[in-house]
């Protein structure tokens, strides 16, 4: 992917993150009291409401892609070189896949798993 296209991804994920993080923060203390927001039954109901779960998954993907692509930019500013650039790009993709997979696993298990008391 061309670097200009990757920067466009960075700006699109930034705009999406602003919307999704604002919703997330409002749901974690403003629209819902903070003590209730971290209460087990409430968190379970959030994971098991498909709109909320979809927003959380979107937030996960957007923030992780934006964050690690930003780190990639810093690493490219830090050092230059063909091998360095190649490994930074590959490492960024690998880390994004692993972190999104781990977060998605939490969402799927919370939405579908059997509750352990």
């Amino acid at each position, binding site marked *: 992917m061309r670097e200009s296209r990757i920067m466009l991804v960075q700006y699109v994920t930034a705009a999406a993150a602003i919307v999704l993080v604002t919703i997330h923060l409002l749901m974690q203390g403003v629209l819902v009291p903070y003590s209730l927001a*971290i209460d*087990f039954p409430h968190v379970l109901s959030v994971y098991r409401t498909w709109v909320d779960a979809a927003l959380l998954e979107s937030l996960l993907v957007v923030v992780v892609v934006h*964050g690690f692509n930003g780190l990639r930019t810093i690493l490219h500013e830090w050092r230059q070189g063909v091998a360095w650039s190649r490994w930074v790009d590959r490492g960024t993709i690998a880390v994004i896949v692993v972190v999104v997979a781990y977060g998605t696993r939490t969402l799927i298990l*919370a939405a579908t798993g059997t509750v352990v008391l």
Partner: protein
Amino acid sequence: MTQNAGGEGADSPSTEKQVKNQRGVLASLNPSGYRLERWAYTFQRVTGLAILVYVLGHIGDTSFFVGGPFGSGPNTSSWSGDIAITANLVGNLILVLVVLVVVFHGINGIRLILSEFGLIFKKPSRPEYPYRAKSQGALQRHIIWLAIVAAILAALWAGSIIMG
């Protein structure tokens, strides 16, 4: 990390200058002696890295809702243990700091997007002494100050909600 030429001839004036110009990422992040936009550049990167560290920790700690890395479903005792570790004075202070840096990063990020697409630049003109970048108009600085003030107010608000 510093990258410098080193080796023989390190005392010659040209090499000395070269070494001075290759102080690496720490020098590129040092905004002292520069204008507000350079401070915003440094803060954008530092806050971005801080948020990334928090996000990784948050993805890790919320996984304890389903019993952690080896869990199989929603687990009340695992979640209670996680809340006991994170919902205390230190954890609450971290959340307030996260709100502070997220709000600054977000508003300053909007400024950068608007700049990237040329929406908040002044018209280009011939460089004249003292050669200040005319593209960096007052609006840019106003948005940076807005980001700083909004971040502080949001952090105070978050503190009153979380600890209040």
